[in-house]
């Protein structure tokens, strides 16, 4: 049950250790890490992440609360970085812990689908050719449909 918006990097192993501690009720733990992917021609110099500070944590908490309502989660974590990142850098992570693997997997996918297009972050890519805002993908919008009920 933790949400963090930060400029600093994070350590996946440490984040999971902090989340699960000495607990013995978690049988399945899923993590997703998003990383800055270079362009195929290696031209990406940096990715800049802008966000809406007054809204970001609130939005992440709401998305997390929805996941906790739908699945049997014993642990849940969202970390999202903002600021300037370079190819290969970690952008964000989610972790979901549950007694059962299906809950952990589905909740992690749900968190990612909502983070992609319902949390106030915007990515700008910088290369030698200039800077461009990353377009939202139709496929990300469509990914939300499967969670409708």
């Amino acid at each position, binding site marked *: 049950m933790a949400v963090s918006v930060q400029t600093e990097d994070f350590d996946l192993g440490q984040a999971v250790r902090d989340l699960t501690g000495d607990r013995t009720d978690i049988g399945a733990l899923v993590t997703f890490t998003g990383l800055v992917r270079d362009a195929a021609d290696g031209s990406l110099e940096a990715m800049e992440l802008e966000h809406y500070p007054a809204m970001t944590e609130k*939005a992440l908490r709401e998305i997390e609360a929805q996941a906790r309502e739908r699945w049997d989660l014993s642990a849940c974590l969202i970390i999202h970085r903002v600021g300037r990142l370079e190819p290969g850098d970690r952008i964000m992570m989610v972790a979901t812990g549950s007694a059962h693997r299906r809950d952990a997997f589905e909740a992690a996918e749900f968190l990612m689908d909502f983070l992609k*297009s319902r949390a*106030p*972050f915007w990515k700008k890519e910088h290369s030698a050719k200039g800077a461009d805002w990353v*377009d939202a993908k139709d496929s990300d919008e469509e990914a939300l449909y499967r969670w409708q009920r």
Partner: protein
Amino acid sequence: MTLDILYFAWVRERVGTHKETVETSAATVADLLAELRNREERYALAFSDLSAVRVAVDQTLAELDASLENAREVAIFPPMTGG
């Protein structure tokens, strides 16, 4: 009514400011956008395609026809690209 308006990403770049305070009697988000579009060319440019614009009222995502009653802060931005 006095409203803080925030702009993000390319909406911010086109409007040319991150934040401004406006005096308005707009009843809905759509009314507010129409008002701004009529005010100056840069707004008309930023909001020329309403399908490319998303809004939040008081830090909660809202539709264009959302009421501005009791609103304090409206944010206008492109579709989000988190994760």
